[in-house]
């Protein structure tokens, strides 16, 4: 997943689906808030208040954040998805099997699955989707290493990889795992912007950007009995307070939020059900951080990055803006993860140390000045102002820039930033974050590169390759622990907090966080804010 909106303490951009969720509040008609395994009722419509608008439905070219995946799970299906036990299971695919060394992955598709335009899901369509994704500057990097795709029969797709990749299946839970109809591929190639054509539970009805996206029930959906609702509508409501107020006034039935104040407000409510993403982490949760560009001055100087880290009082920041909801973090992985290291070597708050480093730099180059970019959000703008004060105290000359989400992500990709707030790295498997850290995805400033901070550390690449190609858990643990430590040394990211997502529903809305995978096993129904609208039903 690339791109995001809104704000916890900090925000900017997010990664692939992760696997964490917890539920609080009072249930209505079920044993757990957001999950109801009772007999669903058919019909009705649900309106969901989201954080922001997306820029389109086409996986190869649009920047999908949490909102993008919500829309995608409405009109499309992912090839694979995450099960409740953390394993990756087939969804639109029927099976996915590796060869002995995980260099060839064979996928069989479900038969009889049709797109919303009546065309059939075939291996050729899946291959053509792959071709479009691989050719895209946005998604192509994630598919590097897949040397060819074969279609021996209409329902079999064979992915040939240049090197072993045990985590290949997890990659198909991300944006590159969503399949669109052939007509959509063709029309887009012809320069048109077609309406989405998918195999999903709902069919596109209307989209007025910044106002609403509505989809109606797919009567021919391949999953028997789904969806339960007749219609689902998404309404972007950018202001956190107004989104919560709209839920309270009945203007929407569900809201997505990443605002600690809103999460705390609805936690424990008897009227509403709240599901959040802060506990019970199985994969890697999304992290908030400030990203530093290691390819431009002055953040290309390690002393500057160290000084910025040492002068950032994260605990104070979270106390002011986090409402005690989250804790400061020191790296990519959290307690409970097999890759967690309690002391990564990440700098602790030390203003005197920061000042000394700044003075060293000043003697050589003059006062270090840089711009801290953030997304346009009143709350975030307040947060970065405090950060600006902290850094100025250490001797920096900091200016702040507020930029729209999509534009900021473009700046990340092209390396046109110095420091920027962001969130990312939620993933069921750490290998899914390969492209963000790899030296192979570094481009010069102005070029397209998914290693946004342009950090070129050969030890990181070695660790990433080791983790990617090995199926030995102990080898992988060593590799990713090393990655975590190198990130703390190189400091392309200044870590802040585990990023909170929550979905809040009124009492009528059932099973919005529940998911049963097509194979019958329990799936992750609330994955960093991403839900499956096909599972929702209304009580009364």
């Amino acid at each position, binding site marked *: 997943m690339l791109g995001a909106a809104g704000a916890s303490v900090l925000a900017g951009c997010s990664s692939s689906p992760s696997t964490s969720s917890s539920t609080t509040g009072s249930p209505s008609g079920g044993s757990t808030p957001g999950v109801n395994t009772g007999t669903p009722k058919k019909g009705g419509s649900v309106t969901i*208040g989201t954080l922001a608008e997306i*820029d*389109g439905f086409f996986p190869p*070219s649009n920047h999908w954040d949490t909102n993008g995946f919500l829309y995608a799970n409405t009109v499309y299906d992912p090839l694979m998805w995450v099960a409740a036990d953390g394993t990756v299971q087939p969804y639109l695919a029927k099976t996915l099997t590796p060869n002995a060394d995980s260099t060839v992955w064979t996928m069989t598709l479900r038969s009889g699955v049709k797109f919303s335009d009546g065309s059939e899901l075939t291996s050729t369509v899946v291959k053509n989707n792959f071709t479009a994704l691989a050719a895209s*500057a*946005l998604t192509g990097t994630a598919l590097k290493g897949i040397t060819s795709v074969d279609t021996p029969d209409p329902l079999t797709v064979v992915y040939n990889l240049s090197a072993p990749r045990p985590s290949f299946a997890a990659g198909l839970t991300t944006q590159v795992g969503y399949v669109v109809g052939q007509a959509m591929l063709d029309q887009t190639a012809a*320069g048109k*912007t077609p309406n989405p054509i998918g195999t999903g539970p709902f069919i596109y009805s209307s989209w*007025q*950007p*910044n*106002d609403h996206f509505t989809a109606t029930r797919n009567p021919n959906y391949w999953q028997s009995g789904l969806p339960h609702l007749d219609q689902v509508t998404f*309404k*972007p*409501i*950018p*202001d956190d*307070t*107004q*989104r919560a*107020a*709209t839920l*309270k*006034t009945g*203007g929407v039935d569900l809201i997505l939020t990443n605002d600690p104040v809103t999460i705390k407000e609805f936690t424990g409510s008897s009227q509403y059900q709240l599901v959040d993403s802060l506990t019970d982490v199985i994969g890697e949760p999304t992290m908030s951080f400030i990203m530093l560009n290691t390819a431009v001055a002055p953040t290309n100087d390690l002393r500057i990055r160290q000084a910025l880290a040492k002068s950032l009082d994260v605990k104070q920041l979270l106390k002011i803006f986090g409402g005690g909801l989250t804790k400061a973090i020191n790296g990519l992985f959290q307690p409970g993860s097999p890759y967690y290291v309690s002391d990564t070597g990440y700098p602790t708050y030390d203003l005197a140390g920061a000042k000394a480093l700044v003075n060293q730099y000043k003697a050589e180059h003059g006062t270090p000045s840089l711009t801290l970019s953030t997304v*346009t959000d009143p709350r975030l703008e307040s947060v970065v102002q405090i950060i600006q004060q902290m850094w100025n105290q250490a001797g920096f000359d900091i200016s702040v820039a*507020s*930029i*729209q989400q*999509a*534009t900021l992500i*473009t700046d990340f*990709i*092209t390396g046109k930033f110095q420091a920027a707030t962001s969130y990312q790295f939620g993933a069921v498997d750490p290998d899914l974050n390969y492209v963000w850290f790899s030296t192979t995805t570094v481009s010069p400033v102005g070029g*397209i590169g998914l290693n946004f901070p342009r950090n070129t550390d050969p030890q990181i690449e070695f660790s990433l390759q080791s983790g990617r190609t090995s199926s030995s858990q102990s080898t992988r643990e060593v590799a990713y622990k090393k990655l975590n430590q190198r990130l703390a040394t190189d400091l392309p990211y200044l870590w802040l907090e585990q990023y909170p997502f929550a979905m809040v529903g009124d009492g009528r809305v059932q099973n919005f966080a529940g998911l049963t995978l097509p194979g019958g096993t329990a799936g992750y129904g609330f994955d960093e804010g991403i839900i499956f609208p096909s599972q929702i039903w209304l009580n009364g």
Partner: protein
Amino acid sequence: MTKYFIRRFLQLVVVAFIISVLCFMLVHLLPGDPSVVILGPNDTAHNRAVLFQQLGLNKPLYQQYFVWLGAVFHGNLGQSYLNHESVTHIVATGFPIDLELIVISQVIAFAVAIPLALVTSRRPNRALDNVSTTSTFGLLALPPFVIAPIMVAIFAVGLHWFPATGYVPFSQNPAANLHDMILPSLAITAGSIAVYYRLLRSDLISTLQEDFITMARSKGLGNRTIMWRHAFRPSSFSLLAAAGVNIGALLAGTFIVEYLFAIDGLGYSLVQAVQQRDYLVVQGIALVVAVAYVVIQFIIDFLFTVVDPRVTRE
């Protein structure tokens, strides 16, 4: 009179022409390849080549201007590079929302400010006048982003009288549309009420000291007649001028209210486009808003002649 309007119309045409040149130049004055400005940084070389062909980007600038102007006259303002939405569609959906917000808010503002000014100007510095003057001064100090959340907390969340966010087009459901627009309109009305009230009150106090008012009183005319028939019209000059400027400023200037109430109006679209560097959207909206502003000033000029026909002789 006819000469006056012809002169004004010609001025309008000249200003509109200058606006169109400036809006056209927006894309060309930015550094770098105009095709990158129009299509964004991530589009393909093929699409850039097609755009060059379509817009004649390799032709002299004046020729490009006429190609662009021709497209504008055919209702083609280009499209957003982000979601490929037509700019004409963005304007067509956003402009009526802004217009409705402005009309409702201005009707409320006039409905409150004019009667209040008529009443208080008759007896200045009395209790009602003092209360009104102080209250409107307070309203002037309260920006929409403060008023809006307070109103939502009271009237939407507390009393459930109005929705907290959302918008239904008038063509779909007029009653629901008006219901949705009340709170956003009230949020931007406060400032207008304060300005209109204070201007009109001040002018009325001055007019009421004129000889023709003394004459009217000596003829035994009632207060209501004097105020409405004799004092209001000559006192409304400043009010009209202020309304013209205010309405112009509100065109696409209602961003905060549209953001808070999640209404996809022109102001919201414009600010988003600026932040996303979606220059064709900025260009299209800027053109429409600027031309609308000029047209509004033309209408205000016409209204001046109604209030005081001597204007045409100047």
